[in-house]
């Protein structure tokens, strides 16, 4: 069996949709962050696959992926720092408790 592009794209789409689903339904902030990571990684897979199968002559997608991984790491670090802050002031990282400003 030859692995064509579709065998990579469908898992990546499933990953992305799982990420969106988790982002919406999860109640724990760390779990939300994990869902976001899933979405970002699905993007990375897409870029690499498109580059590998459609435009093998150049490396633009690969380079974008490298930068995207770095950006995702920065995002996670900052988000965790803020989550720690939230935990210190409210003793909880459940999003249902972060609702003091809802009107």
């Amino acid at each position: 069996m030859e692995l064509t592009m579709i065998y990579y794209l469908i898992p990546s789409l499933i990953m992305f949709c799982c990420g969106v689903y988790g982002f919406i339904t999860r109640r724990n902030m760390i779990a939300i962050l994990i869902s976001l990571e899933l979405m970002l990684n699905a993007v990375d897979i897409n870029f690499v696959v498109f580059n590998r199968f459609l435009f093998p002559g150049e490396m633009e997608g690969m380079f974008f992926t490298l930068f995207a991984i770095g950006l995702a790491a920065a995002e996670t670090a900052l988000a965790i720092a803020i989550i720690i802050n939230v935990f210190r002031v409210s003793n909880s990282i459940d999003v249902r408790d972060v609702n003091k400003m809802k009107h």
Partner: protein
Amino acid sequence: MDYSQFLAMRQEIGLLIVFLLVFLYDTFMPKKALNATAGFTTILFLLFTVASFIWGNIGDVDAFAGMYSTSGVCSMIKNILNVGVLIVLIQSCRWANGELMIMRRGEFYELLLVTLFGMYLMISARHFLLFVIGLESASLPLAAMVAFDKNRYESHEAAIKYMLTAVFSSAVFMMGLSFVYGLSGSLYFHDIALQLGSSFNTTLVVALAFVIAGVGFKLSLVPFHLWTADVYQGAPTSVTSYLSVISKGAAAFAFLVILVQCFGQFYSMVWEWMLYALIIATITIGNLFAIRQKNMKRFLAFSSISQAGYIMLGIVGCNDMGLAAMMYYILVYIFSNLAAFGVIGAIENQTGKVEMTDYNGLSRTNPWLACSMMLAMFSLAGIPPFAGFFSKFFIFTSAINQGSVAIYILVLIALINTIISLYYYLLVVKAMYISPDEPQIANFRSASSERLGLWITVGGIVALGIVSFFYDSIMEAASGSALFAFIG
């Protein structure tokens, strides 16, 4: 490699120098000198703003194989943002010198300058890699700035809400980009337009919807606006004012560049209609929710959502006049909104009050603050002698010039919404001037930096509309732009 290309990035490099000097000052100066950090940053930034007005514009130049491009319009919008940031710096002086901020005020200025640098990259990027880096460095430090009031719970809540939605939106945006890359094989704006041709493709619609949704989050257009009110309310007032004018202005311009440069040929086929729907929803829902707000910062958050809808009207016209009207609108919006936030900040710093009922009878105890607030509200609502009227006038005219029946209906809806917005802007004026209740806020003398900021913004509100020089020079810069070559 040709190192003279770096000269094309002179505005970015100037900003980077300002950032490094502030960073070094903050790190190495003795403790006593740190009291002057706010003044040092403001003066340095003032010098940079003046220098960038004089030497910033070098005409149309592409650098780094077309990844970066600057032109008269780009340097103009950067100068407009500089003026806004300067006012924010002046207004935040008192807050930054406050007791709670002593340890960290240098960081506030550093983060602010880094986000501005990211916005510069967003404006000038002609390659999606550079654009995404600019977008992230404009939005990540902002999350840290939102969380700056360590002792206030709301600040952290706002920060986590901003952070999660920002990451979500950039993931959606990059997913759209990956499809664009799959279709065109390039990330250069110009190559994308060439490779896509004008052949219609369903995947392209999905990709474009993702891209628009991603940038729409940053601009708080309506289906993606839910973070705005909470973040604006929770963030420190200086950060809120920065978030509501500067980052919105930069994102609006970058949005226009992406839409017309990469996807210009699909204008009437795909995204014109998406924008119509977004604009109608943004203006209407922003207005309707603003009516029932009691907190001033929340109220201005919804007002800024509907203002973003008006800014988008400059994009649907897709001509040089629309571009000029949009930039002029951003300039006027910067002055009007910063005047409102200047008053809110002054009152909050003095008394800690931000509710609308606290403003009852303000004109009797603090007539000057009430007067500035009234002018800001008149300008935001678009009442004739003030700048807000002219910016709305130009943006409606440029949209109507496009000439289809659909756009007439769109502008009509926007006009009706202007009347609705008059109601809630005047609610504030009513509370300050007509309400018979006892004044909640005693007479006080605001800090000299706050008064300076208010003088500048109020002067801008009055002068920008009457003095035609500002619109003329923006129009001149915009009419030379080659942005709209691919529209079809």
